Protein backbone atom coordinates (compact mmCIF):
# COMPACT_ATOMS: atom_id res chain seq x y z
CA UNK A 1 0.00 0.00 0.00
CA UNK A 2 1.27 3.45 -0.83
CA UNK A 3 1.77 6.26 1.69
CA UNK A 4 -1.20 8.16 3.03
CA UNK A 5 -1.58 11.78 1.91
CA UNK A 6 -4.10 14.53 2.66
CA UNK A 7 -6.05 15.52 -0.43
CA UNK A 8 -9.05 17.39 -1.68
CA UNK A 9 -11.57 15.17 -3.45
CA UNK A 10 -10.90 16.94 -6.73
CA UNK A 11 -7.15 16.39 -6.41
CA UNK A 12 -7.70 12.71 -5.58
CA UNK A 13 -9.63 12.24 -8.82
CA UNK A 14 -6.85 13.85 -10.83
CA UNK A 15 -4.04 11.88 -9.16
CA UNK A 16 -5.98 8.60 -9.36
CA UNK A 17 -6.62 9.15 -13.07
CA UNK A 18 -2.91 9.67 -13.64
CA UNK A 19 -2.09 6.56 -11.60
CA UNK A 20 -4.60 4.58 -13.68
CA UNK A 21 -2.61 5.54 -16.77
CA UNK A 22 -4.59 8.51 -18.10
CA UNK A 23 -2.31 11.00 -19.88
CA UNK A 24 -4.87 13.18 -21.67
CA UNK A 25 -7.01 15.72 -19.88
CA UNK A 26 -9.19 18.33 -21.56
CA UNK A 27 -11.30 20.74 -19.55
CA UNK A 28 -12.68 24.15 -18.91
CA UNK A 29 -12.72 25.73 -15.43
CA UNK A 30 -15.90 25.83 -13.38
CA UNK A 31 -16.44 25.90 -9.61
CA UNK A 32 -16.51 23.58 -7.67
CA UNK A 33 -14.33 21.23 -9.79
CA UNK A 34 -11.56 23.57 -10.90
CA UNK A 35 -8.93 21.82 -8.75
CA UNK A 36 -9.12 18.80 -11.06
CA UNK A 37 -7.93 20.97 -13.94
CA UNK A 38 -5.46 22.91 -11.75
CA UNK A 39 -3.87 19.67 -10.54
CA UNK A 40 -3.65 18.30 -14.08
CA UNK A 41 -2.13 21.56 -15.32
CA UNK A 42 0.61 21.22 -12.73
CA UNK A 43 1.25 17.49 -13.07
CA UNK A 44 0.68 16.47 -16.72
CA UNK A 45 3.58 18.47 -18.23
CA UNK A 46 5.96 16.86 -15.73
CA UNK A 47 5.04 13.31 -16.79
CA UNK A 48 4.79 13.80 -20.53
CA UNK A 49 1.00 13.99 -20.54
CA UNK A 50 -1.39 16.46 -22.11
CA UNK A 51 -3.27 19.12 -20.19
CA UNK A 52 -5.32 21.33 -22.43
CA UNK A 53 -7.70 24.07 -21.38
CA UNK A 54 -10.19 24.01 -24.22
CA UNK A 55 -12.13 27.02 -25.46
CA UNK A 56 -15.35 25.51 -24.11
CA UNK A 57 -16.82 22.40 -22.50
CA UNK A 58 -18.09 21.31 -25.91
CA UNK A 59 -14.60 21.47 -27.38
CA UNK A 60 -13.18 19.55 -24.41
CA UNK A 61 -15.58 16.59 -24.72
CA UNK A 62 -14.91 16.35 -28.44
CA UNK A 63 -11.15 16.31 -27.80
CA UNK A 64 -11.84 13.39 -25.45
CA UNK A 65 -13.70 11.70 -28.32
CA UNK A 66 -10.70 12.18 -30.56
CA UNK A 67 -8.19 10.68 -28.13
CA UNK A 68 -10.55 7.83 -27.19
CA UNK A 69 -10.87 6.94 -30.88
CA UNK A 70 -7.13 6.21 -30.92
CA UNK A 71 -7.53 3.80 -28.00
CA UNK A 72 -5.90 6.07 -25.42
CA UNK A 73 -7.48 6.92 -22.08
CA UNK A 74 -8.83 10.46 -21.91
CA UNK A 75 -10.93 12.39 -19.48
CA UNK A 76 -12.68 15.66 -18.90
CA UNK A 77 -14.23 17.20 -15.82
CA UNK A 78 -16.81 19.87 -15.15
CA UNK A 79 -19.71 20.83 -12.93
CA UNK A 80 -23.43 20.64 -13.69
CA UNK A 81 -23.91 23.48 -16.26
CA UNK A 82 -20.77 22.30 -18.05
CA UNK A 83 -22.08 18.73 -18.19
CA UNK A 84 -25.21 20.00 -19.94
CA UNK A 85 -22.91 21.42 -22.61
CA UNK A 86 -21.05 18.12 -22.89
CA UNK A 87 -24.25 16.08 -23.33
CA UNK A 88 -24.04 16.03 -27.13
CA UNK A 89 -20.46 14.77 -27.03
CA UNK A 90 -21.31 12.11 -24.45
CA UNK A 91 -24.09 10.81 -26.69
CA UNK A 92 -21.63 10.65 -29.62
CA UNK A 93 -19.12 8.74 -27.45
CA UNK A 94 -21.86 6.26 -26.51
CA UNK A 95 -22.97 5.98 -30.16
CA UNK A 96 -19.42 5.26 -31.27
CA UNK A 97 -18.88 2.80 -28.37
CA UNK A 98 -15.91 4.78 -27.06
CA UNK A 99 -14.63 4.61 -23.48
CA UNK A 100 -13.88 7.82 -21.56
CA UNK A 101 -14.15 9.30 -18.09
CA UNK A 102 -16.33 12.32 -17.43
CA UNK A 103 -16.22 13.87 -13.95
CA UNK A 104 -19.22 15.84 -12.72
CA UNK A 105 -18.80 17.70 -9.41
CA UNK A 106 -22.36 18.88 -9.04
CA UNK A 107 -23.53 22.36 -8.03
CA UNK A 108 -26.98 23.84 -7.58
CA UNK A 109 -29.28 24.35 -10.57
CA UNK A 110 -31.14 24.61 -12.82
CA UNK A 111 -29.52 27.17 -15.13
CA UNK A 112 -26.51 28.93 -13.71
CA UNK A 113 -27.79 27.93 -10.27
CA UNK A 114 -25.01 28.50 -7.78
CA UNK A 115 -21.61 27.21 -6.74
CA UNK A 116 -22.71 25.44 -3.56
CA UNK A 117 -23.09 21.63 -3.61
CA UNK A 118 -26.01 19.68 -5.04
CA UNK A 119 -27.10 16.24 -6.24
CA UNK A 120 -29.63 17.48 -8.75
CA UNK A 121 -28.07 15.97 -11.89
CA UNK A 122 -29.20 12.50 -10.76
CA UNK A 123 -31.99 12.02 -13.31
CA UNK A 124 -30.01 13.75 -16.06
CA UNK A 125 -27.00 11.44 -15.86
CA UNK A 126 -28.58 8.13 -14.79
CA UNK A 127 -30.90 8.13 -17.82
CA UNK A 128 -28.06 8.67 -20.28
CA UNK A 129 -26.99 12.32 -20.43
CA UNK A 130 -27.75 13.15 -24.07
CA UNK A 131 -30.04 12.16 -26.93
CA UNK A 132 -30.72 8.59 -27.99
CA UNK A 133 -30.91 5.25 -26.20
CA UNK A 134 -27.82 4.86 -24.08
CA UNK A 135 -26.36 4.72 -20.59
CA UNK A 136 -23.13 5.77 -18.97
CA UNK A 137 -21.69 4.04 -15.92
CA UNK A 138 -22.30 6.37 -12.95
CA UNK A 139 -20.27 6.21 -9.73
CA UNK A 140 -21.17 8.23 -6.61
CA UNK A 141 -18.24 8.46 -4.14
CA UNK A 142 -18.86 9.32 -0.50
CA UNK A 143 -15.29 9.98 0.67
CA UNK A 144 -12.03 11.24 -0.76
CA UNK A 145 -10.75 7.65 -0.62
CA UNK A 146 -13.66 6.56 -2.82
CA UNK A 147 -13.02 9.48 -5.17
CA UNK A 148 -9.61 7.92 -5.82
CA UNK A 149 -10.72 4.27 -5.85
CA UNK A 150 -13.76 4.80 -8.08
CA UNK A 151 -11.80 6.86 -10.60
CA UNK A 152 -9.62 3.84 -11.39
CA UNK A 153 -12.63 1.54 -11.42
CA UNK A 154 -14.60 3.84 -13.71
CA UNK A 155 -11.73 3.93 -16.20
CA UNK A 156 -11.32 0.17 -16.03
CA UNK A 157 -15.01 -0.59 -16.62
CA UNK A 158 -15.34 2.07 -19.32
CA UNK A 159 -12.62 0.18 -21.18
CA UNK A 160 -14.03 -3.23 -20.44
CA UNK A 161 -17.46 -2.31 -21.81
CA UNK A 162 -16.39 0.36 -24.31
CA UNK A 163 -18.68 3.05 -22.97
CA UNK A 164 -18.36 6.41 -21.19
CA UNK A 165 -18.21 6.39 -17.39
CA UNK A 166 -19.09 9.26 -15.09
CA UNK A 167 -17.81 10.04 -11.64
CA UNK A 168 -20.73 11.90 -10.06
CA UNK A 169 -19.68 13.81 -6.95
CA UNK A 170 -21.39 16.62 -5.14
CA UNK A 171 -19.49 19.86 -4.62
CA UNK A 172 -18.72 19.00 -0.99
CA UNK A 173 -17.00 15.76 -2.02
CA UNK A 174 -14.88 17.70 -4.50
CA UNK A 175 -13.84 20.36 -2.00
CA UNK A 176 -13.41 18.44 1.25
CA UNK A 177 -10.02 17.21 2.41
CA UNK A 178 -9.40 13.76 3.83
CA UNK A 179 -6.53 11.31 4.18
CA UNK A 180 -6.28 8.96 1.23
CA UNK A 181 -4.21 5.92 0.30
CA UNK A 182 -3.50 6.38 -3.36
CA UNK A 183 -3.75 3.27 -5.53
CA UNK A 184 -0.63 1.74 -7.07
CA UNK A 185 0.12 2.88 -10.62
CA UNK A 186 -1.40 0.56 -13.20
CA UNK A 187 -2.54 0.49 -16.76
CA UNK A 188 -6.31 0.06 -16.69
CA UNK A 189 -6.49 0.00 -20.43
CA UNK A 190 -4.30 -2.58 -22.04
CA UNK A 191 -2.25 -1.79 -25.12
CA UNK A 192 -4.26 -3.87 -27.52
CA UNK A 193 -7.49 -2.15 -28.52
CA UNK A 194 -8.43 -3.84 -31.80
CA UNK A 195 -11.19 -1.30 -32.41
CA UNK A 196 -8.94 1.78 -32.19
CA UNK A 197 -8.10 3.99 -35.17
CA UNK A 198 -4.31 3.69 -35.08
CA UNK A 199 -3.40 3.27 -38.74
CA UNK A 200 -3.91 0.09 -40.75
CA UNK A 201 -0.38 -0.16 -42.19
CA UNK A 202 -2.28 -1.76 -45.09
CA UNK A 203 -2.56 -4.93 -42.99
CA UNK A 204 -6.18 -4.79 -41.83
CA UNK A 205 -9.50 -3.20 -42.76
CA UNK A 206 -10.16 0.33 -41.51
CA UNK A 207 -11.51 0.82 -38.02
CA UNK A 208 -14.24 3.37 -38.50
CA UNK A 209 -15.19 5.37 -35.40
CA UNK A 210 -18.63 6.74 -36.05
CA UNK A 211 -22.09 7.03 -34.54
CA UNK A 212 -23.85 7.34 -37.91
CA UNK A 213 -25.31 4.28 -39.57
CA UNK A 214 -26.80 4.53 -43.06
CA UNK A 215 -28.90 1.42 -42.60
CA UNK A 216 -31.80 1.52 -40.12
CA UNK A 217 -31.55 -2.28 -39.83
CA UNK A 218 -27.91 -2.00 -38.76
CA UNK A 219 -28.57 0.89 -36.40
CA UNK A 220 -31.30 -1.13 -34.75
CA UNK A 221 -28.94 -4.08 -34.39
CA UNK A 222 -26.30 -1.84 -32.79
CA UNK A 223 -28.86 -0.53 -30.30
CA UNK A 224 -30.03 -4.01 -29.37
CA UNK A 225 -26.44 -5.23 -28.97
CA UNK A 226 -25.60 -2.25 -26.77
CA UNK A 227 -28.56 -2.95 -24.50
CA UNK A 228 -27.56 -6.60 -24.19
CA UNK A 229 -24.26 -5.31 -22.89
CA UNK A 230 -26.10 -2.98 -20.51
CA UNK A 231 -28.16 -5.91 -19.18
CA UNK A 232 -24.95 -7.78 -18.36
CA UNK A 233 -23.59 -4.71 -16.56
CA UNK A 234 -26.80 -4.37 -14.51
CA UNK A 235 -26.35 -8.00 -13.51
CA UNK A 236 -22.69 -7.83 -12.48
CA UNK A 237 -21.46 -4.30 -11.79
CA UNK A 238 -23.77 -2.88 -9.11
CA UNK A 239 -21.98 -1.51 -6.06
CA UNK A 240 -23.52 -0.50 -2.75
CA UNK A 241 -22.85 -0.24 0.97
CA UNK A 242 -25.12 -1.74 3.64
CA UNK A 243 -24.87 0.03 6.98
CA UNK A 244 -26.53 -1.44 10.10
CA UNK A 245 -29.16 -3.17 7.96
CA UNK A 246 -29.30 -6.50 9.84
CA UNK A 247 -32.17 -5.51 12.14
CA UNK A 248 -33.25 -2.27 10.43
CA UNK A 249 -36.93 -1.33 10.29
CA UNK A 250 -36.31 1.92 8.46
CA UNK A 251 -33.89 1.99 5.53
CA UNK A 252 -32.25 5.25 4.53
CA UNK A 253 -31.11 5.51 0.92
CA UNK A 254 -28.52 8.22 0.32
CA UNK A 255 -25.32 8.85 -1.65
CA UNK A 256 -22.32 11.16 -1.45
CA UNK A 257 -22.37 13.80 1.28
CA UNK A 258 -25.99 13.08 2.32
CA UNK A 259 -24.95 9.49 3.14
CA UNK A 260 -22.43 10.92 5.61
CA UNK A 261 -25.01 13.20 7.19
CA UNK A 262 -27.37 10.21 7.36
CA UNK A 263 -24.74 8.10 9.11
CA UNK A 264 -24.60 10.67 11.92
CA UNK A 265 -28.40 10.66 12.12
CA UNK A 266 -28.50 6.83 12.22
CA UNK A 267 -26.00 6.68 15.10
CA UNK A 268 -28.17 9.17 17.01
CA UNK A 269 -31.41 7.34 16.14
CA UNK A 270 -29.98 4.03 17.36
CA UNK A 271 -29.14 5.68 20.70
CA UNK A 272 -32.83 6.51 20.93
CA UNK A 273 -33.77 2.89 20.22
CA UNK A 274 -34.88 3.43 16.62
CA UNK A 275 -33.78 0.61 14.30
CA UNK A 276 -32.44 2.47 11.31
CA UNK A 277 -29.97 1.35 8.65
CA UNK A 278 -28.80 2.55 5.28
CA UNK A 279 -28.29 1.22 1.79
CA UNK A 280 -25.91 3.55 -0.02
CA UNK A 281 -25.87 3.05 -3.79
CA UNK A 282 -22.29 3.50 -5.04
CA UNK A 283 -23.19 2.87 -8.67
CA UNK A 284 -26.22 4.95 -9.66
CA UNK A 285 -26.32 3.32 -13.07
CA UNK A 286 -26.50 0.39 -12.78
CA UNK A 287 -28.77 1.05 -9.78
CA UNK A 288 -28.59 -1.63 -7.04
CA UNK A 289 -32.22 -2.65 -7.41
CA UNK A 290 -31.94 -6.19 -6.07
CA UNK A 291 -30.61 -5.31 -2.62
CA UNK A 292 -33.32 -2.67 -2.24
CA UNK A 293 -36.01 -5.13 -3.32
CA UNK A 294 -34.72 -7.59 -0.71
CA UNK A 295 -34.72 -4.87 1.94
CA UNK A 296 -38.35 -4.11 1.08
CA UNK A 297 -39.30 -7.51 2.53
CA UNK A 298 -37.61 -6.58 5.81
CA UNK A 299 -38.18 -2.89 6.55
CA UNK A 300 -41.35 -0.92 7.22
CA UNK A 301 -40.35 2.13 5.21
CA UNK A 302 -37.59 3.79 3.20
CA UNK A 303 -36.27 7.32 3.58
CA UNK A 304 -34.37 8.98 0.73
CA UNK A 305 -32.03 11.76 1.82
CA UNK A 306 -31.16 13.85 -1.20
CA UNK A 307 -29.95 17.27 -2.31
CA UNK A 308 -32.53 17.46 -5.09
CA UNK A 309 -36.33 17.36 -5.31
CA UNK A 310 -36.55 13.58 -4.87
CA UNK A 311 -35.01 12.23 -8.07
CA UNK A 312 -33.53 9.04 -6.61
CA UNK A 313 -36.73 8.41 -4.64
CA UNK A 314 -38.41 7.39 -7.89
CA UNK A 315 -35.68 4.83 -8.59
CA UNK A 316 -36.15 3.39 -5.10
CA UNK A 317 -39.93 3.14 -5.62
CA UNK A 318 -39.33 1.38 -8.93
CA UNK A 319 -36.74 -0.98 -7.45
CA UNK A 320 -39.06 -2.06 -4.63
CA UNK A 321 -42.14 -2.03 -6.89
CA UNK A 322 -43.77 0.39 -4.40
CA UNK A 323 -43.97 -2.44 -1.85
CA UNK A 324 -43.27 -0.08 1.05
CA UNK A 325 -43.66 3.67 1.50
CA UNK A 326 -40.69 5.83 0.50
CA UNK A 327 -40.33 9.21 2.25
CA UNK A 328 -38.05 12.09 1.33
CA UNK A 329 -35.82 14.37 3.39
CA UNK A 330 -34.23 16.92 1.10
CA UNK A 331 -32.56 20.31 0.79
CA UNK A 332 -31.74 22.06 -2.47
CA UNK A 333 -30.11 25.19 -3.88
CA UNK A 334 -26.73 24.45 -2.33
CA UNK A 335 -28.01 23.58 1.15
CA UNK A 336 -26.95 20.36 2.91
CA UNK A 337 -29.45 18.60 5.20
CA UNK A 338 -28.43 18.46 8.87
CA UNK A 339 -28.36 15.24 10.91
CA UNK A 340 -31.20 16.72 12.99
CA UNK A 341 -33.38 17.16 9.92
CA UNK A 342 -32.78 13.54 8.95
CA UNK A 343 -33.46 12.45 12.53
CA UNK A 344 -36.77 14.35 12.51
CA UNK A 345 -37.81 12.49 9.36
CA UNK A 346 -36.82 9.17 10.94
CA UNK A 347 -38.90 9.96 14.02
CA UNK A 348 -41.92 10.97 11.96
CA UNK A 349 -41.74 7.71 10.01
CA UNK A 350 -41.35 5.72 13.23
CA UNK A 351 -44.43 7.43 14.65
CA UNK A 352 -46.30 6.71 11.45
CA UNK A 353 -46.82 10.39 10.78
CA UNK A 354 -44.78 10.95 7.64
CA UNK A 355 -46.48 11.01 4.29
CA UNK A 356 -44.60 8.90 1.78
Amino acid at each position, binding site marked *: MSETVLMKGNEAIAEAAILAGCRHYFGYPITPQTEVAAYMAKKMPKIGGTFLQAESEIAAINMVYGVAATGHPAMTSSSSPGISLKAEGISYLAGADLPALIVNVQR*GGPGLGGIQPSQSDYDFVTRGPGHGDFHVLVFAPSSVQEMADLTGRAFHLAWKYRMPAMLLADG*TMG*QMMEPVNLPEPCNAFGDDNPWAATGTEMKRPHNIINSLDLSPENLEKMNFARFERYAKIEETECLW*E*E*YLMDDAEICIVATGITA*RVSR*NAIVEARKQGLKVGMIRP*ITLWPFPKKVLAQAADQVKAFLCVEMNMGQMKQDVELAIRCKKPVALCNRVGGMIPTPDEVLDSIRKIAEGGMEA
Partner: protein
Amino acid sequence: MNYKRLTLFAGHYGSGKTNIALNYALWLRGQGLRVTVADLDIVNPYFRTKDGEAQLKAAGIRLISSDYANSNVDLPALPGDAYSLVDDRSVHGVIDVGGDDRGALALGRYVPKIREEGDYEMLFVLNKARPLTRNIDDALEVFCEIEAACALPFTAIVGNTNLGPLTKPEDVVAGAAFAEEFGERVGLPVKMICASQKLSNELQNTVRNFFPINIMQLYYMEKEGTSLGKINL
Protein backbone atom coordinates in the same frame (compact mmCIF):
# COMPACT_ATOMS: atom_id res chain seq x y z
CA MET B 1 5.53 33.41 21.89
CA ASN B 2 6.36 36.75 20.30
CA TYR B 3 3.90 38.41 17.97
CA LYS B 4 3.74 41.37 15.61
CA ARG B 5 0.89 43.74 14.83
CA LEU B 6 0.07 41.91 11.61
CA THR B 7 0.34 38.16 11.13
CA LEU B 8 -0.15 36.74 7.66
CA PHE B 9 -0.73 33.06 6.92
CA ALA B 10 0.09 31.94 3.37
CA GLY B 11 1.07 28.66 1.77
CA HIS B 12 -0.06 25.84 -0.50
CA TYR B 13 -3.82 25.56 -0.65
CA GLY B 14 -5.15 23.00 1.76
CA SER B 15 -2.15 23.44 4.05
CA GLY B 16 -4.38 24.52 6.94
CA LYS B 17 -4.09 28.31 6.85
CA THR B 18 -7.69 29.07 7.76
CA ASN B 19 -7.88 26.84 10.83
CA ILE B 20 -4.54 28.13 12.10
CA ALA B 21 -5.47 31.76 11.44
CA LEU B 22 -8.67 31.35 13.49
CA ASN B 23 -6.81 29.70 16.36
CA TYR B 24 -4.01 32.25 16.27
CA ALA B 25 -6.53 35.09 16.39
CA LEU B 26 -8.17 33.51 19.44
CA TRP B 27 -4.74 33.16 21.06
CA LEU B 28 -3.91 36.83 20.40
CA ARG B 29 -7.28 37.78 21.88
CA GLY B 30 -6.28 35.71 24.90
CA GLN B 31 -3.30 38.05 25.34
CA GLY B 32 -5.84 40.82 25.90
CA LEU B 33 -5.44 42.46 22.48
CA ARG B 34 -8.00 43.94 20.12
CA VAL B 35 -7.97 41.53 17.20
CA THR B 36 -9.36 41.61 13.67
CA VAL B 37 -9.23 38.75 11.16
CA ALA B 38 -9.28 39.44 7.43
CA ASP B 39 -10.21 36.75 4.92
CA LEU B 40 -8.36 37.56 1.70
CA ASP B 41 -9.02 34.15 0.14
CA ILE B 42 -10.11 34.65 -3.46
CA VAL B 43 -9.56 31.02 -4.45
CA ASN B 44 -11.54 28.69 -2.22
CA PRO B 45 -15.30 28.45 -2.82
CA TYR B 46 -16.08 26.40 0.34
CA PHE B 47 -14.56 25.97 3.83
CA ARG B 48 -13.74 29.59 4.54
CA THR B 49 -12.93 31.79 7.51
CA LYS B 50 -16.57 32.79 7.44
CA ASP B 51 -17.43 29.30 8.78
CA GLY B 52 -15.79 30.38 12.07
CA GLU B 53 -17.57 33.74 12.26
CA ALA B 54 -19.77 32.88 15.25
CA GLN B 55 -16.81 31.64 17.27
CA LEU B 56 -14.81 34.77 16.50
CA LYS B 57 -17.73 37.02 17.34
CA ALA B 58 -18.26 35.28 20.67
CA ALA B 59 -14.61 35.95 21.51
CA GLY B 60 -14.95 39.63 20.58
CA ILE B 61 -12.92 39.35 17.38
CA ARG B 62 -13.94 41.25 14.27
CA LEU B 63 -14.02 39.37 10.96
CA ILE B 64 -13.57 41.17 7.67
CA SER B 65 -14.61 39.00 4.74
CA SER B 66 -16.10 39.35 1.31
CA ASP B 67 -19.88 39.76 1.10
CA TYR B 68 -19.78 36.91 -1.39
CA ALA B 69 -18.00 34.38 0.86
CA ASN B 70 -20.17 31.25 1.25
CA SER B 71 -22.71 32.67 -1.20
CA ASN B 72 -23.83 31.06 -4.44
CA VAL B 73 -21.62 33.15 -6.71
CA ASP B 74 -17.94 32.68 -7.36
CA LEU B 75 -16.70 36.26 -7.25
CA PRO B 76 -13.03 36.56 -6.34
CA ALA B 77 -13.81 39.83 -4.53
CA LEU B 78 -11.84 41.48 -1.74
CA PRO B 79 -13.67 43.14 1.16
CA GLY B 80 -13.39 46.92 0.94
CA ASP B 81 -12.76 47.33 4.66
CA ALA B 82 -9.67 45.11 4.53
CA TYR B 83 -7.71 48.35 4.19
CA SER B 84 -8.73 49.28 7.74
CA LEU B 85 -6.47 46.49 8.94
CA VAL B 86 -3.34 48.03 7.44
CA ASP B 87 -4.45 51.60 8.22
CA ASP B 88 -5.65 51.26 11.81
CA ARG B 89 -2.51 50.50 13.79
CA SER B 90 -4.40 50.21 17.07
CA VAL B 91 -5.63 46.70 16.27
CA HIS B 92 -3.76 43.43 15.86
CA GLY B 93 -4.55 41.80 12.57
CA VAL B 94 -4.53 38.21 11.35
CA ILE B 95 -4.67 37.84 7.59
CA ASP B 96 -5.79 34.58 5.97
CA VAL B 97 -4.25 34.67 2.51
CA GLY B 98 -5.62 32.48 -0.30
CA GLY B 99 -3.73 29.35 -1.31
CA ASP B 100 -0.72 29.23 -3.64
CA ASP B 101 0.50 32.12 -5.79
CA ARG B 102 -2.99 32.59 -7.24
CA GLY B 103 -4.33 33.34 -3.77
CA ALA B 104 -1.35 35.43 -2.71
CA LEU B 105 -1.70 37.73 -5.71
CA ALA B 106 -4.55 39.53 -3.96
CA LEU B 107 -2.30 40.41 -1.04
CA GLY B 108 -0.05 42.52 -3.23
CA ARG B 109 -2.14 45.66 -3.01
CA TYR B 110 -1.70 45.85 0.78
CA VAL B 111 2.00 45.07 0.74
CA PRO B 112 3.42 48.62 0.35
CA LYS B 113 1.67 49.72 3.56
CA ILE B 114 2.56 46.52 5.40
CA ARG B 115 6.23 46.99 4.51
CA GLU B 116 6.15 50.70 5.34
CA GLU B 117 4.93 49.94 8.86
CA GLY B 118 7.31 46.97 9.15
CA ASP B 119 5.53 45.35 12.10
CA TYR B 120 4.48 42.03 10.57
CA GLU B 121 5.12 38.32 10.32
CA MET B 122 4.64 36.57 7.00
CA LEU B 123 4.25 32.85 7.74
CA PHE B 124 4.60 29.93 5.35
CA VAL B 125 2.25 27.12 6.39
CA LEU B 126 3.63 23.73 5.43
CA ASN B 127 1.95 20.32 5.51
CA LYS B 128 4.26 17.48 4.45
CA ALA B 129 1.25 15.22 3.86
CA ARG B 130 -0.02 17.37 0.97
CA PRO B 131 0.96 15.69 -2.30
CA LEU B 132 2.46 18.80 -3.92
CA THR B 133 4.62 19.76 -0.88
CA ARG B 134 5.94 16.35 0.13
CA ASN B 135 9.60 17.18 -0.35
CA ILE B 136 11.79 20.24 0.17
CA ASP B 137 12.16 21.06 -3.53
CA ASP B 138 8.43 20.95 -4.26
CA ALA B 139 7.68 23.04 -1.16
CA LEU B 140 10.34 25.53 -2.24
CA GLU B 141 8.63 25.91 -5.60
CA VAL B 142 5.35 26.89 -3.90
CA PHE B 143 7.22 29.15 -1.44
CA CYS B 144 8.97 31.08 -4.24
CA GLU B 145 5.83 31.36 -6.36
CA ILE B 146 3.95 32.92 -3.45
CA GLU B 147 6.71 35.43 -2.65
CA ALA B 148 6.89 36.40 -6.32
CA ALA B 149 3.10 36.82 -6.53
CA CYS B 150 2.62 39.07 -3.49
CA ALA B 151 6.07 40.69 -3.23
CA LEU B 152 6.20 40.11 0.52
CA PRO B 153 9.03 37.84 1.69
CA PHE B 154 8.26 35.20 4.29
CA THR B 155 9.68 35.69 7.78
CA ALA B 156 9.07 32.26 9.36
CA ILE B 157 7.71 28.74 8.83
CA VAL B 158 4.65 27.17 10.45
CA GLY B 159 4.69 23.39 10.48
CA ASN B 160 1.24 21.89 10.09
CA THR B 161 1.81 18.34 8.94
CA ASN B 162 -1.41 16.37 9.43
CA LEU B 163 -3.60 13.67 7.94
CA GLY B 164 -6.84 15.10 9.27
CA PRO B 165 -8.46 12.80 11.84
CA LEU B 166 -5.86 10.07 11.17
CA THR B 167 -2.94 12.23 12.38
CA LYS B 168 -0.66 10.40 14.79
CA PRO B 169 1.88 12.10 17.08
CA GLU B 170 4.73 10.65 15.01
CA ASP B 171 3.33 12.36 11.88
CA VAL B 172 3.57 15.68 13.69
CA VAL B 173 7.09 14.93 14.92
CA ALA B 174 8.20 14.00 11.39
CA GLY B 175 6.48 17.13 10.07
CA ALA B 176 8.32 19.26 12.65
CA ALA B 177 11.67 17.90 11.44
CA PHE B 178 10.59 18.61 7.86
CA ALA B 179 9.68 22.19 8.80
CA GLU B 180 13.08 22.65 10.49
CA GLU B 181 14.87 21.29 7.43
CA PHE B 182 12.85 23.54 5.15
CA GLY B 183 13.56 26.53 7.42
CA GLU B 184 17.29 25.85 7.20
CA ARG B 185 17.06 25.65 3.41
CA VAL B 186 15.38 29.07 3.14
CA GLY B 187 17.17 30.61 6.13
CA LEU B 188 14.08 31.19 8.26
CA PRO B 189 13.10 30.09 11.78
CA VAL B 190 10.17 27.81 12.60
CA LYS B 191 7.65 29.90 14.51
CA MET B 192 5.38 27.09 15.59
CA ILE B 193 4.34 23.50 14.99
CA CYS B 194 0.57 23.07 14.90
CA ALA B 195 -1.50 20.00 15.63
CA SER B 196 -4.93 19.18 16.96
CA GLN B 197 -5.24 19.89 20.67
CA LYS B 198 -6.35 16.27 21.02
CA LEU B 199 -2.68 15.38 20.62
CA SER B 200 -1.49 17.92 23.21
CA ASN B 201 -0.58 15.35 25.86
CA GLU B 202 1.72 13.46 23.51
CA LEU B 203 3.26 16.50 21.87
CA GLN B 204 3.58 19.42 24.26
CA ASN B 205 6.84 18.18 25.75
CA THR B 206 8.33 16.55 22.66
CA VAL B 207 7.77 19.18 19.96
CA ARG B 208 9.42 22.57 20.18
CA ASN B 209 7.10 25.61 19.74
CA PHE B 210 4.03 23.37 19.84
CA PHE B 211 0.81 25.28 19.12
CA PRO B 212 -2.33 23.22 19.76
CA ILE B 213 -5.28 24.10 17.57
CA ASN B 214 -8.98 23.47 17.79
CA ILE B 215 -10.16 22.23 14.39
CA MET B 216 -13.49 23.48 13.07
CA GLN B 217 -16.02 20.66 12.93
CA LEU B 218 -18.55 20.58 10.12
CA TYR B 219 -21.90 18.98 10.82
CA TYR B 220 -21.95 16.95 7.64
CA MET B 221 -18.75 15.08 8.44
CA GLU B 222 -19.10 11.90 10.48
CA LYS B 223 -18.39 12.03 14.17
CA GLU B 224 -15.18 10.34 15.26
CA GLY B 225 -15.42 6.57 15.57
CA THR B 226 -18.13 6.11 12.92
CA SER B 227 -17.29 3.24 10.61
CA LEU B 228 -18.39 2.11 7.19
CA GLY B 229 -20.81 -0.76 6.62
CA LYS B 230 -20.37 -3.68 4.23
CA ILE B 231 -19.47 -2.86 0.65
CA ASN B 232 -20.04 -5.59 -1.94
CA LEU B 233 -16.62 -5.37 -3.60
